[in-house]
């Protein structure tokens, strides 16, 4: 489901490598590249698996579930009008150790976020781009 857009969010330019990640939210899917040979997930997306030297990893929908590996509560307004505080976190996706997606944790008070917190993806729509954000996993 798409959330109300935060208009101060600076958006990415799309190219062939990153489009699945930034647009998969249109279908409610978090898309992560995966090597077709060694099955390793790769993020940020790269058009080649540097570990097994296989070309053309393919984007696959992952569960969208993970845990907060580390986080910070950002208090500084880096640009005029930036609303603070908010949480920036490295989310370790359930699919693979050290498969990290940097994002925000929303849907709870900033002081309630902790390392190890289970979270699940949600998306914030800005036109064609669906920014993956994470919220406390209600299933836990």
């Amino acid at each position, binding site marked *: 489901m798409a959330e109300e857009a935060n208009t101060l969010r*600076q958006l*990415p330019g799309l190219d062939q490598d990153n489009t699945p990640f930034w647009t998969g939210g249109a279908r409610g899917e978090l898309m992560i590249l995966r090597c077709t040979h060694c099955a390793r997930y790769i993020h940020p997306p790269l058009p080649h698996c540097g570990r097994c030297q296989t070309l053309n990893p393919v984007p696959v929908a992952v569960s969208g579930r993970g845990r907060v590996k580390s986080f*910070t509560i950002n208090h500084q307004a880096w640009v005029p009008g930036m609303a603070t505080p908010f949480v*920036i976190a490295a989310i370790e996706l359930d699919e693979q150790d050290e498969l990290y997606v*940097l994002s925000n944790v929303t849907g709870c008070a900033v002081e309630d976020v902790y390392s190890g917190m289970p979270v699940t993806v949600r998306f914030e729509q800005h036109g064609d781009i669906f920014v993956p954000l994470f919220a406390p996993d209600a299933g836990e």
Partner: protein
Amino acid sequence: MSATEHPERLVSITGVGQSGVGRPMPLSPLKLTVDACVAAIADAGLTPADIDGLATYPGAHNTGDGYSPIGAVETVAALGLQPKWMAASIEGHSHMGSVAMAVHAIASGACRHVLIFRTVAQASARARVHHAGVLGGGDTEARVWGWQQWSVPFGALSTATLFALYAQGYRDKYGLTDEQLGAIAVNGRTMAGLNPNAVYRKPITIEDYLAGRMISTPLRIFDCDAFVDGSTAIVLSRRDIAADLRQPPLDFEALALGMNPIGMGAYVGDFSHMGINDVGEAIWSKTDLKPKDMDFAQLYDGFSIHVLMWLEALQLCGPGEAASFVEGGKRIGLDGELPLNTSGGQLSAGRFHGFGHIYEACLQLWGRAGERQIKDAEVGIVSNGGFGVGAFVLRRRD
């Protein structure tokens, strides 16, 4: 000269210079650059005509943010140099990359004396535009490309927020306290009080540190370095001719760069370290010296947490032991077992992206550090980065 596995063993530092430093300075970035370079060349006992190579980090970025307003080409013109070799790169790797490139240029026989400089004008830039220099450029209407797309869309507009993740990761694993982290900032300010060229010289207590406003948890204002205007320059010379110059050569005992992928949006490990242990392993594999032999450590402190991670990566402390090592500040003070960031570091002397640390190491080894001089300093270690990392051990030859 033949090929060698240790090109740094063929190279020495023979001169250093620093311009005036301020927030901001009433001098142009090019004038600051010339001041630093002229001072460094004279310090070595050379003239501009002797300089046959030039290296800088990262090269001119004329975006108005003051990150690197001056490049190699205009410095060559202003100084009237006639180099046979130049290098300027933001990669390859890190702030220490220009030092490594200069070492390789000299060791290969291409150059005899290489001038290296780093100029910043971030204080002037922020006086013009308050949010100059934020990641993504600060224009929320513009799209963000490249590695910054993995942080900027989430409001991570400063490296402070990214290294805060490491500070939190270290805290989660080792139980870092606010007082332990704050010891780095308090130490820096104490040292800066003895450094006339530092920008923040009034001492702070741990209570002052704790009262500082939070930037991005657990990093407070005093955990973040100070943007400045200024320039630092270093002269590297071929070791076999360095002894004929003005002062005792400072020989590179070992130099190593790290090649970890931090800086492209990728993260490795558990955020309790920066993936830079390869630097320490390489350094100590190249020398018979040991961590305990170091008379000082000038360790990169873009943020206070960097220092703890460098202490451990360089094996100056064991894993998880850096926090208790720095607590209270005694062991890292001028009379302590490992005097740390004796210029005040970037937290208090100013953000030169590691070049201030190199400059300070040289002053200490030449006995020119004034009130903050470490008695009988002969050998020390310096680290840089941040995004892209490197370190070296430097020893004075008498």
